């Protein structure tokens, strides 16, 4: 399998070493659970004196000081640190979980707790492999298409999502997170693929897919998740740059709203509806 330049860069830039690091990138001290991003450097402080420093070309260095919650370390690394590294290096991380179908990526986005991971886990029963969970990293370097980099996070599900989807649980994610790791039923995709569709999850009375266009598409693509904030900070976009960026996304990504009842007894209906939509959309893309 040939890996893209972006994948190789991320692998190189996310290498980890341990030692002492700067405790602030400015003159102000960095509070717990916050970050600073300055040109090609990123500094995150977890709980206590748990610092993660990234500098382009030098990878990540972690300082485990007093009060550091080591069990949370991989969550910080795979979350904000990874998204910051992607952003500093010109990639665009978005808050989404995704499946692959016929060589294309179908990503689901929603606020935290909105069902992204659950729908991806459930679609595994329909033969759709997981592409990523929680964060989807987009490579915008090709002006003609948007490529997705394979996910770097394991699938995480709440106990209720595990019960709904019937996916086998693995170990608990951490002491503070009420989720368990799980193995996707149809496996995972490990190669970069083009993005076909971004699907926004919403609640509705009946399962329905609504195609979104024009200004509505731009509005939906204005993400306020921390990944988007990291990206905008790293790129130092002006309003015109932001608009240009959004317009490009809106032109190259199919945007759909998926409304479905949140009633657990209707869950399977929604999943089957989504599986038909995804396979139908992939088939239309092929012909």
């Amino acid at each position, binding site marked *: 399998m040939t890996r893209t330049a972006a994948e190789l860069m991320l692998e190189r830039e996310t290498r980890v070493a341990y030692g002492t690091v700067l405790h602030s990138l400015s003159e102000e001290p960095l509070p717990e659970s916050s970050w600073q991003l300055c040109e090609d450097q990123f500094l995150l402080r977890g709980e206590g004196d748990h610092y993660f420093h990234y500098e382009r070309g030098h990878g990540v260095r972690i300082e485990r000081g007093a009060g550091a919650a080591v069990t949370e370390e991989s969550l910080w690394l795979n979350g904000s640190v990874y998204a910051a590294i992607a952003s500093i290096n010109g990639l665009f991380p978005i808050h989404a979980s995704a499946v692959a179908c016929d060589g294309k990526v179908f990503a689901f986005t929603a606020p935290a707790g909105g069902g992204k991971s659950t729908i991806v886990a459930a679609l595994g029963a329909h033969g759709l492999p997981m592409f990523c969970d929680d964060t989807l990293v987009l490579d915008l370097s090709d002006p003609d298409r948007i490529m997705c980099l394979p996910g770097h996070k394991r699938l995480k599900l709440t106990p209720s999502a595990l019960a709904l989807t019937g996916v086998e649980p693995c170990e608990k994610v951490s002491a503070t997170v009420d989720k368990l790791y799980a193995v996707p039923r149809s496996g995972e995709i490990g190669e970069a693929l083009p993005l076909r569709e971004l699907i926004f999850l919403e609640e509705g009375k009946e399962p329905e897919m609504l195609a979104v*266009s*024009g*200004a*509505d*598409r*731009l*509005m939906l693509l204005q993400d306020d998740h921390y990944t988007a904030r990291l990206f905008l900070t790293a790129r130092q976009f002006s*309003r*015109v740059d*932001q*608009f*240009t960026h959004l*317009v490009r996304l*809106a*032109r190259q990504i199919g945007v759909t709203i998926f409304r479905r009842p949140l009633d657990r007894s209707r869950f399977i209906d929604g999943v089957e509806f989504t599986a038909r939509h995804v396979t139908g959309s992939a088939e239309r893309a092929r012909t």
Partner: protein
Amino acid sequence: MTALRKQRDRFTETSDSDEIILMRMDTGEFLSLSGTAAAIWKLIDGERDRDSLIEALEAEFAESAAGIAKDVDRLLGQLIGSGLLASE
């Protein structure tokens, strides 16, 4: 009448099929123009005034001059009010 002029430093725009989308530079808000509103926006060239806009639209749309004038006045009011357009 005075010519209508777009205040180009106050917005950026794009089009998506028949829709024109403006973003205000001061607030980042989007304004979507479609149908008659999009046609009006396209006709604003820095030389036309309100009456010549209506005249040009009459040729394009099978609608009464009064109906068109109402649409034009509503949109011009909105655009001038938001600072995206000035009459000079």
